[in-house]
């Protein structure tokens, strides 16, 4: 009897929007775990010639794309608005003008359709991308969040309970990748190009610094490393020395990865958790996945990371996070505002 009831039970659908940076995305997720649609309209080609994301242009693109993307997400999932149980939206951190488009749209949608609104922290969304990629994954675990704007270690104790162990004091890991790539005249965004170049080079060719590598320090710093790489390149150029770009990329990437991996393992040990998950745009880096995977295996820790499409900014991860907030009635009201510097795990007063 109970089985039949479960089979006929309608799934709980969350619709979510993500407009925190340069991707306009909408997605529909069933029961927090099954992606029915995940439409992403990327602006990367638009920003490429500026060598980085231009906030005003990003905001303009969001308002052009947002309704078509929502409409596609609903159609691709084969559902209508009235089927949706909760609407999730990224309200921070991110570019304020970009966030405001998503937040304004989500509030209007929530009111017009009479569906509860959930304000989602973008970084928590990145962590939750792993629940979509790994249906059996459950907290507790240690999450390493690495992206263009963030580098954080988070102890995920439960679906709605997080403890931030440490984050970067200056540049995010992804930011260091982008800046080094720019000086090496690689296209924007530079991460994937450095990753590919690094695979062909010697990671021990140049000894770049590993900052804050003290025991049980969970803060990061990448600006010194970035400067060291830039100095190396500049002084070689001045002396008109030929450099091996693959070796530079490999040595730089190894310095970043060493720090990320050793701190993640220490954090897991200190917190007594047996699982590590990788999240954020830099989670697509093959060198990082390989090294962290290897070290986890050595230490008997389970290691998870999302598919590349779930590593980029996407609304499916926001819909997943929104589902778990919906489960505990963590709703926002129509005063919800964008919070560009929202911290991970922070529950900003939204009511």
């Amino acid at each position, binding site marked *: 009897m109970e089985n039949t009831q479960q089979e006929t039970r309608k799934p709980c659908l969350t619709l979510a929007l993500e407009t925190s940076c340069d991707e306009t995305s909408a997605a529909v997720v069933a029961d927090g775990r099954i992606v029915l649609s995940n439409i992403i309209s990327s602006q990367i080609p638009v920003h490429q010639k500026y060598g980085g994301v231009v906030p*005003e*242009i990003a905001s303009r693109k969001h*308002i052009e794309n947002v309704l078509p993307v929502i409409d596609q997400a609903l159609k691709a999932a084969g559902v209508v608005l009235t089927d949706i149980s909760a609407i999730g939206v990224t309200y921070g951190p991110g570019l304020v003008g970009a966030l*405001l488009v998503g937040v304004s749209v989500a509030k*209007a949608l929530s*009111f*017009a359709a009479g569906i509860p609104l959930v304000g989602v922290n973008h970084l928590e969304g990145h962590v939750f991308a792993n629940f979509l990629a790994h249906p059996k994954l459950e907290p507790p675990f240690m999450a390493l969040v690495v992206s263009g704007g963030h580098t954080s270690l988070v102890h995920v104790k439960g679906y709605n309970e997080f403890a931030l162990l440490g984050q970067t004091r200056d540049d995010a890991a992804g930011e260091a990748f982008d800046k080094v790539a720019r000086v090496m005249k690689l296209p924007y965004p530079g991460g994937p190009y450095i990753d590919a170049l690094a695979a062909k080079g010697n990671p021990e060719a140049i000894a770049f610094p590993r900052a804050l590598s003290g025991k049980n320090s969970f803060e990061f710093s990448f600006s010194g490393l970035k400067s060291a790489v830039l100095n190396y390149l500049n002084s070689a150029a001045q002396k008109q020395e030929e450099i091996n770009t693959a070796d530079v990329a490999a040595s730089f990437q190894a310095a970043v990865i060493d720090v990320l991996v050793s701190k993640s393992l220490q954090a897991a040990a200190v917190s007594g958790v047996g699982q590590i998950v990788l999240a954020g745009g830099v989670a697509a880096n093959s060198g990082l996945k390989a090294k962290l995977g290897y070290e986890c295996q050595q230490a008997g820790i389970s290691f998870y990371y999302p598919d590349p499409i779930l590593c980029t900014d996407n609304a499916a991860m926001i819909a997943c996070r929104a589902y778990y907030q919906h489960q505990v009635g963590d709703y926002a009201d129509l005063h*919800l505002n964008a919070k560009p510097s929202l911290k991970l795990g922070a529950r900003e007063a939204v009511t």
Partner: protein
Amino acid sequence: MPILAIDTATLVSSVALATVDNLLAEITLQTKKTHSELLMPHIVKLLDMAQVAKSDLKGVAVSIGPGSFTGLRIGLSTAKTLAYALQVPVVGVPTLAAMAYGCPVPGVILAPMLDAQKGNVYQALFEWHQGELKEIQPAIVTEVTAALESLSQQERPVIVMGESAVMYREKIEQIGKNLILAAPHVVIQRASSVAGLGYKLIKQGVRHDVMGLEPLYIRRSEAEVLWECRHGVAK
């Protein structure tokens, strides 16, 4: 059956409910609070006080600019989404024209001016002729002092409106002559005027695509302009 009208082009937040020949309700605030927080709650209050159900709305009119880029996007995001979800039409109303529409005075030039930063304004010129609003000069970005000096050379009286008229009140008084600063209830944007001009546009057959409607920025982003300067692209 009323339409909902929204104007968030500047710090003024204004929402209204109007039928074709009757203004039901309007909330206009100049409290310098953010549109992002307050616009939706204002709309909910407006509908509630006027006892209009959201399902009774038969359209949405929105002020599309020029004005503050972020303000315009909040207004348009809200208006477009309400129209999309409630399955009603949306009409984009030029902000400066809506201001002139709210001041139906024949024999004068109406000069709404909104802040375009660094001493510049978005400005258009209008006049009323035989009961119809006519545009004399489309919206441009112009240096404010030069614009005011030029208006003072006109033979007709000029009513200067908008946040920049308030901001440059002293300059307007100093020039004097034919320049008149609009009264406080006319000098700011009013959603009731957006509704009025919105109905007019609908009657003229204007229809906007809810998916594609965008703000009327007039200006490109600073990054685009700089990039083209550096790369010597003439556009």
